[in-house]
């Protein structure tokens, strides 16, 4: 690492670094818009931009399989689930003035303090560390598949059991009781199908 630090200047960024910073700025801006916008559906759409930007960051870090998993799962299913949740709870279209609660200054102070402290610590700790992105990609599908099914098989199988439990739990939680009226059964089966 010391040898790498001597060969790379701090103020001479490479092309990958410039791309990383630009995409990072877009990602951070979209994240800030997600937590500050007053239109609930727009928050979900800004979340798409933030998560897509993170997928590009994974690609720049040569973790391509993680990037495509991010696109598939987060952009494909999580955001769609969030949008369905917004529709099923009859979220108001347009600006809702009560999107932020009353403890907004406290939240701003806590987040600002945490950001300042963590940025200071992280920058101080990793000032002379460089990621070597040369050579073969470390996160290609070949590599990730090999290590996942060679060294991480047991956690992988345990995770499938957890996913099954989450599926069953979501269905049980979101269905209505059997003695209830049949008026809401159509929308109920829709939400179950979405799980």
């Amino acid at each position, binding site marked *: 690492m010391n040898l790498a630090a001597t060969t790379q200047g701090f103020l001479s960024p490479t092309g*990958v*670094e410039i791309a990383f910073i630009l995409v990072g700025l877009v990602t*951070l801006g979209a*994240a800030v818009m*997600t*937590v500050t916008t007053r239109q*609930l559906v727009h928050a*979900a759409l800004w*979340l798409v931009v*933030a998560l897509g930007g*993170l997928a590009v*960051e994974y690609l*720049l*870090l040569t*973790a391509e399989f*993680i990037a495509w998993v*991010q696109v598939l*799962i*987060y952009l494909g*299913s*999580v955001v769609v*689930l*969030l949008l369905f*949740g917004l529709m*099923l*709870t009859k*979220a108001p279209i347009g600006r809702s003035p009560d*999107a*932020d*609660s*009353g403890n907004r200054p406290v*939240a701003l102070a*806590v*987040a600002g303090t*945490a*950001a300042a402290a*963590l*940025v200071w610590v*992280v*920058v101080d700790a*990793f*000032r002379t*560390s*460089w*990621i070597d*992105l040369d050579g073969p990609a*470390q*996160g290609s599908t070949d590599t*990730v598949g090999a*290590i*996942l099914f060679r060294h*991480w098989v047991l956690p992988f199988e345990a*995770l499938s059991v957890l996913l099954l439990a*989450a599926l069953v*739990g*979501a269905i049980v*939680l*979101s269905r209505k009781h059997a003695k209830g009226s049949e008026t809401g059964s159509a929308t109920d089966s829709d*939400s179950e199908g979405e*799980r």
Partner: protein
Amino acid sequence: MHLAYPAVLSVLLFCTGLYGVLARRNAILVLMSVELMLNAVNLNLVAFDVWLRDALHSGQALTLFTIAIAAAEIGIGLSIVLMVYRNRGSSDVDRLRDTAEGPDDDSSDDPDAAAPAQRTQKAEATA
């Protein structure tokens, strides 16, 4: 690439999500902020995995597990929010104060004065 760039971006994303969790009122927006925090952790895991050149690639494996657990979490969380919305007619986390203890909590003084509609809602929620 300088390691500080992904680390600082991850810190800022995490603190953005922290602000969202604390400041938002709608439960689904709180879940979106939780997703932002989880993604900040994922970026950290991937960056340090690539930096350390781990033979087992623990960072990327844990990132995949985190993504799967986040998908499970969002499914369970949304079904809980839907159930709360069905029982209460609102997904406003500031109004879910039934189990809160505070100076403005006067329901413990005279439990008989509570509205019967509210009590049936509680019965539905516990059923």
